[in-house]
């Protein structure tokens, strides 16, 4: 599937200009608002796997949860097949619940410790009347088999299973209601190296077999490259670069993307620290590039205007006034 082919299809989910603030206690003063999503737009097409990449605190999990309705955005729309679901909650959301599922980072705490796997898997089946009551045990067994586990695992309690097994069951739970979108939030980062591949392969297979779309949230670019069709790089509440996976890797435009890629290869980048930002005087942070403080390529306008995401023909966009020249020759290992 090529990026061009994808762009033709109508988006399954289209987030438009999302803004979301959290109220947090800051380090050195009274409480203030933290803008977790700052005017974010993102399309996910049917069958597509979109990677959300960025450091912790960049807003990637918030974006995923906002799309699922776990956070309510302060402004903006979330269109599901054209219907705005951003403002819906409670009963209004319920019809869309089944369509969108989530896989969490910590497999163990994804399951109610008081219930067996069978019971946890049966609940969504029953809730959404996926199959008749008497067919539930068989359906549960089939689901387990589908994710490479044995039916007898159904009788176990969560703490009796390993992280990899539980994560596969979490995927089984997600796909059991035949959703059209799964948000996977750092779904492999807590897993041991040796089982990480099992879960990644499974997600990939599910995507191929069911056509379910995935929003795959990760800080690991290598994992994103394996799984995702497109990658959106986030930095402090904004998407700074988005494009087809191969493009991003071959042709990063945004300096931040570039430093992320560098880091994978053992380069240390320049030593920038958390405290840097205070060294700069930015009059209005909302009207400046939020990466300006750490950017080696900073230009004066970076401090006074906000760069836009402009897509090129390949569907690649970077929010930067001074983007890196294309095809810098950086090899992709």
């Amino acid at each position, binding site marked *: 599937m090529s990026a061009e082919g994808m762009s033709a299809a109508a988006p399954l989910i289209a987030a438009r200009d999302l803004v979301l603030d959290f109220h947090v206690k800051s380090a050195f003063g009274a409480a203030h608002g933290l803008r977790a999503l700052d005017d974010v737009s993102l399309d996910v097409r049917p069958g597509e796997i979109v990677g959300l990449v960025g450091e912790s605190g960049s807003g990637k999990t918030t974006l995923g949860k906002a799309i*699922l*309705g*776990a956070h309510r955005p302060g402004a903006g729309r979330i269109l599901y097949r054209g219907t705005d679901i951003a403002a819906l909650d*409670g009963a209004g*959301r*319920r019809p869309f*619940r*089944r369509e*969108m*599922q*989530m896989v*969490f*980072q*910590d497999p163990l*705490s*994804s*399951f*109610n*410790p*008081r219930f067996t796997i069978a019971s*946890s898997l049966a*609940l*969504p089946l029953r*809730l*959404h009347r996926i199959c008749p009551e008497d067919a539930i045990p068989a359906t549960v067994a089939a689901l387990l088999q589908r994710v490479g586990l044995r039916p007898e695992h159904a009788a176990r309690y969560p703490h009796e299973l390993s992280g990899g097994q539980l994560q596969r069951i*979490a995927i089984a*739970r997600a796909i059991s*209601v035949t959703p059209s979108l799964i948000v996977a939030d750092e779904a492999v980062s807590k897993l041991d190296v040796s089982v990480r591949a099992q879960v990644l392969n499974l997600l990939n297979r599910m995507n191929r077999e069911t056509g379910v779309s995935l929003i795959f949230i990760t800080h690991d670019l290598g994992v994103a490259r394996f799984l995702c069709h497109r990658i959106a790089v986030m930095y402090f509440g904004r998407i700074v670069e988005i494009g087809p996976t191969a493009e991003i890797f071959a042709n990063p435009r945004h300096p931040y993307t570039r430093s992320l890629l560098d880091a994978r290869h053992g380069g240390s980048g320049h030593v920038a620290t958390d405290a840097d930002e205070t060294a700069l005087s930015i009059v209005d942070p909302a009207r400046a590039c939020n990466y300006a403080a750490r950017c080696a390529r900073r230009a004066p306008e970076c401090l006074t205007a906000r760069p836009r995401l402009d897509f090129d023909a390949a569907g690649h966009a970077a929010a930067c006034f001074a983007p890196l020249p294309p095809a810098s020759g950086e090899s992709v290992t």
Partner: protein
Amino acid sequence: MRGRLAAALANKLALFGGLITSLVALGVLAGPWLSPYSPTDADFLALLAPPSPAHPLGTDSFGRDVLTRILYGARVSFAVSVSGVLAAALIGTAAGLGAAWLGGLWSAIVMRVCDLLFSFPSFVLALFMMVVLGYGVANIAVAIALIYIPIFARLSRNMALLVRDEPYVQAAILIGQPTRSILMREILPNIAAPLFVQIALGVAFGIVIEAGLSFLGMGVQPPAPSLGAIMADGREYFSRAPWVLTLTGLAVSLALLGLNLLSDGIRDVMDPKLRAKL
């Protein structure tokens, strides 16, 4: 090495607590069948008789068998305490879950009311309620409930807030589970252990409250026996018949000991991760 000893000790203590509580519970439930005597019929030929084979714990100032009185009195004390604490658990937990789930104004109201109830010295609140409602068994239960409602409300709210952010609850929400089912199925079972601990402790303290009120003469009214009423009576005749106060006091301590050890036991078996967070 040391750790193992402590673990074994803790286990044994919890086991011991369960054993005592079962014994006490047996006495409370089977009391009427365990004793040949009536708890209220006086025998004026045997006033304040010391312990003997016929009356293992002696008789009280009415010539009533102290053991029988304790067995029946424990029934009353336990009934008052258990009903008060259970009512508090129900109301408090419902209010606390509501506060955690609905937040906002409801949470503010619930928490302020809890702060208020919580700021009364416990026995002062009980005493005050006796003045407002009058003396009597049911009113003691109400007082005990009022003392414990804020504890359950706060505990369940704080726990529910912790559990609410657990991925499995998030998953339940996302999967479209109705709110009631989320509260009952996902949250309640996972905050139940500390609630049970609190119930056990609450029943123990409820007995102390009941006994204290009856001791002052504001609680269970004669001739109905209650542990506090028996002790209050025994105190009057202590110099002549020390066994009434002493043995009843020991019985109270035994019941409390059992409940305390039991609550320790529940605490030990409950999820240590959850305990660390509390």
